[in-house]
C-alpha cells in the first residue's frame, strides 16, 4: 500500500463509518440522481456544503504544521465576501471582484503572519485579534446589512455546476490538489515541517522561518478568501455578521480529525480535507435525520468524541499491547512493538 494512502486510511475508514451511520437514519443518503445536467443527492450536497470548511482546512493544516493556529479564518470569509460584494455593487467586474477579495485575504493573512513571525505574538492571540475586529471591518464594508448583488457570473461560483458537479466542489478539489503539489513537489513541505517542529534549530540551519510563517498565514488567508467567495456567491449576498461564523473551529476540528498534530510538524492536507468531509457528513446527516434542532450540538459532540476515541493512537497502542499479551501465552514470546509511554 502506498504511504500516501496508508496515511489517510484511518480518515477514510472514519468517513465511511459516518456515512454508514447516516445511511441508517436516512436510507437514501447514498442515492444520486442525474437531472437537468447535474448530479443531485445528499452526497453531492455534502461535497458542496463541505467546500468552505475543506478550503479552510487546507490553509489551517499548513498553519497548524508550523505549530500555529488561525482563528481568524471565519472572519476572513466575512471580510473577503464583503469586499467581493461591495466591488460588484460598486459596478466593478467579476474578475476585479475576485481579485480584490483574494487580495484582501492575502493581506489579512499577511497581517496575522507578521504579528506571529515578526512581532512574536502567540498565534492564538494574534489571530484572535483579527477574529474579533475583522468582523467589524466586514460590517463596516457592508454597513451591517446583507449586501445583495445580482451577477450570475459570480453566483456561478457558489451555486453553478460544471460537468454536473457543483462548482464549489471543483474549487476545493483544485485547491487541495494544487496545495498538495506545491508542498510536496517543492521543498516547502519539508521547510514548513521543520519550522513547526523546531523553529530555532531550523533557523540555525538557515531556514528563513519568518518568511515561511508569514507565507502559511497568507496561504490560510487565501483559502479563507476562496471560502468567503463561495459562501457569498452561494447566497448572492455578503452577510458580514454571519458568514463563516465559528467555521474556524470546524476547520481546526477537520485538521485534527485528519490526524495532524496541533503541536506542529508532519502534516497531511488530504487527510484534513477528508476530516472536513467527515464533519460535513455529520452536519448534513443531522439535518436529514430530522431530529429537533436542540439535539444538533449534542449529536455532533458525541460523534466527534467517539471519532477521537476511535482514532486515538494510544488506544490503538493499548489494543496492540492487549493483543501481544494474549499472544504471549503462546509458547514463543512474541516481542511485538509495545508502544512506550514516551511517544505521547
Amino acid at each position, binding site marked *: 500500500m502506498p504511504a500516501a494512502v496508508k496515511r489517510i486510511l484511518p480518515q477514510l475508514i472514519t468517513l465511511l463509518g459516518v456515512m454508514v451511520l447516516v445511511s441508517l437514519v436516512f436510507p437514501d443518503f447514498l442515492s444520486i440522481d442525474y437531472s437537468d445536467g447535474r448530479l443531485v443527492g445528499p452526497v453531492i450536497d455534502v461535497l458542496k456544503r463541505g467546500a468552505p470548511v475543506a478550503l479552510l482546512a487546507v490553509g489551517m493544516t499548513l498553519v497548524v504544521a508550523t505549530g500555529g493556529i488561525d482563528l481568524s479564518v471565519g472572519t476572513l470569509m466575512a471580510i473577503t465576501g464583503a469586499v467581493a460584494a461591495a466591488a460588484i455593487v460598486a459596478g466593478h467586474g467579476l474578475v476585479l471582484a475576485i481579485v480584490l477579495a483574494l487580495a484582501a485575504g492575502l493581506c489579512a493573512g499577511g497581517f496575522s503572519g507578521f504579528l506571529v513571525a515578526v512581532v512574536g505574538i502567540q498565534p492564538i492571540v494574534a489571530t484572535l485579534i483579527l477574529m474579533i475586529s475583522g468582523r467589524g471591518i466586514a460590517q463596516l464594508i457592508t454597513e451591517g446589512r446583507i449586501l445583495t448583488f445580482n451577477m450570475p457570473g459570480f453566483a456561478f461560483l457558489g451555486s453553478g455546476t460544471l460537468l454536473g458537479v457543483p462548482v464549489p466542489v471543483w474549487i476545493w478539489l483544485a485547491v487541495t490538489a494544487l496545495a498538495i503539489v506545491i508542498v510536496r513537489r517543492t521543498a516547502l513541505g519539508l521547510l514548513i515541517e521543520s519550522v513547526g517542529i523546531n523553529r530555532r534549530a531550523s533557523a540555525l540551519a538557515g531556514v528563513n522561518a519568518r518568511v515561511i510563517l508569514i507565507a502559511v498565514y497568507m496561504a490560510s488567508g487565501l483559502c479563507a478568501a476562496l471560502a468567503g467567495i463561495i459562501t457569498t456567491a452561494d447566497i448572492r449576498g455578503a452577510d458580514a455578521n454571519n458568514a463563516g461564523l465559528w467555521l474556524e473551529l470546524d476547520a481546526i476540528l477537520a485538521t485534527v480529525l485528519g490526524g495532524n498534530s*496541533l503541536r506542529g510538524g508532519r502534516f497531511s492536507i488530504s487527510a484534513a480535507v477528508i476530516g472536513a468531509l467527515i464533519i460535513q457528513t455529520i452536519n448534513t446527516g443531522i439535518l436529514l435525520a430530522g431530529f429537533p434542532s436542540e439535539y444538533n450540538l*449534542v449529536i455532533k459532540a458525541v460523534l466527534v468524541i467517539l471519532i477521537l476515541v476511535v482514532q486515538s493512537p494510544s488506544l490503538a497502542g493499548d489494543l496492540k499491547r492487549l493483543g501481544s499479551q494474549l499472544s504471549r501465552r503462546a509458547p514463543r514470546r512474541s516481542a511485538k512493538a509495545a508502544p512506550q509511554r514516551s511517544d505521547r
Partner: protein
Amino acid sequence: MRNPRLYPLLATIAIFIIAYAICYLQFPYILSTRVAGNLLTDNAYLGIVAVGMTIVILSGGIDLSVGSVIAFSGVFIAVMLRDSGLHPLAVFALLLVITTAFGAAMGWLIYRLAMPAFIVTLAGMFLVRGVAYMMSIDSIPIDHPFFTSLQRVYWLMPGKGRLTLIGVVMLLAFVVGHIIAHRTRFGANVFALGGGEQTARLMGSRVGRTTVMIYAFSGLMAGLGGIVFALYTGSGYPLATVGTELTAIATVVIGGTLLTGGAGYVFGTLFGVLTMGLIQTYIVFDGTLSSWWTRIAIGVLLLAFIVLQKGLLRLTTARSAA
C-alpha cells in the same frame, strides 16, 4: 527588579495603570468607586473562569468549554430551583460536583487519548451547550428568595460604589488561584507540565493525575463562574456566554501568561480581566461607536496592549542584560 520572571506581570500592571490614567483624563468619572465597583461586579464571572483558565494555560493546555459550562450552570440552577425544591446551596454544591467531574473527564480523555486539549475541550464545549439546550431552550428566570437575597448583597463604598458579593468572590478566587498555582505541589506540577510533558514525567511528576486535576479545577472554576453569572443575571439561558472562553484566554494572555505554558502569574490575569473591563467601559462611556467600530476598537485596543507589553518586556530584558 532582580527577577526577570516578574517582568510580564509588571508590564501588565503598568499598562493597566497607564490606560486607566488615559481614560481618566478623558472621562474623570471613570475614577469613581462606582465605576471601580462595576468593573469588579461586571467581570466577576469572567475573572473566576479566567483563574481556572490561567492554571490550564500554565500547564500548556487550553479549555474551550468554559463558556458553555457557564451557560449550562445557569440553566441547571434555574431548572433545579424551579423543579426540585432543593435549597440553592444544595443546588450549587451539586452543580460544582457535576462541572468538576466534567472537567476531570475531559482531563482524563486528554491524557488517555493523548489528544490535544484544544480538540477535546472543543467537543466538550459542543456537548455541554447541547445538554443545556436539552434541559431548556428557553431562558428561565430564577426567583428563589434565598437566591435573590444573595444577589443583593453588597457593601457600599465611599462614593456610592458597590462592592458586590460576586466581586468579592472573584477576588477570593484570585487569591486561592494564586496560592494553588504558586504555592502548592499541584501548582509546581502544573508549571512542570507546561515546561514539557516528557521532562515533567522524567522528573517524577505524575502527569496523568495532574492533567485530570487541572481540568477538574477549571471545571470547578467554570461552575463557580456559572453560579456567579446566574447571580449576576438572575436567570438561566442556554445561549448565554457564547465565546466567553476566547475572552478568558485573551485576559490570561494580556495578564502575561504564555500560551505555550510554563510561565505566568495568576495575578497577572486579574489585571488582564480588569483591562478587558476597562476597554468595555471606555467604549460605553464614549457612546458613539457603531457596532462595527466597537468590534474594531476592541481588537485594536487588544493589539495595542499586547504590542505595548511586548515592547516594554523587550526594553526591560535588554536593559537587564546590559
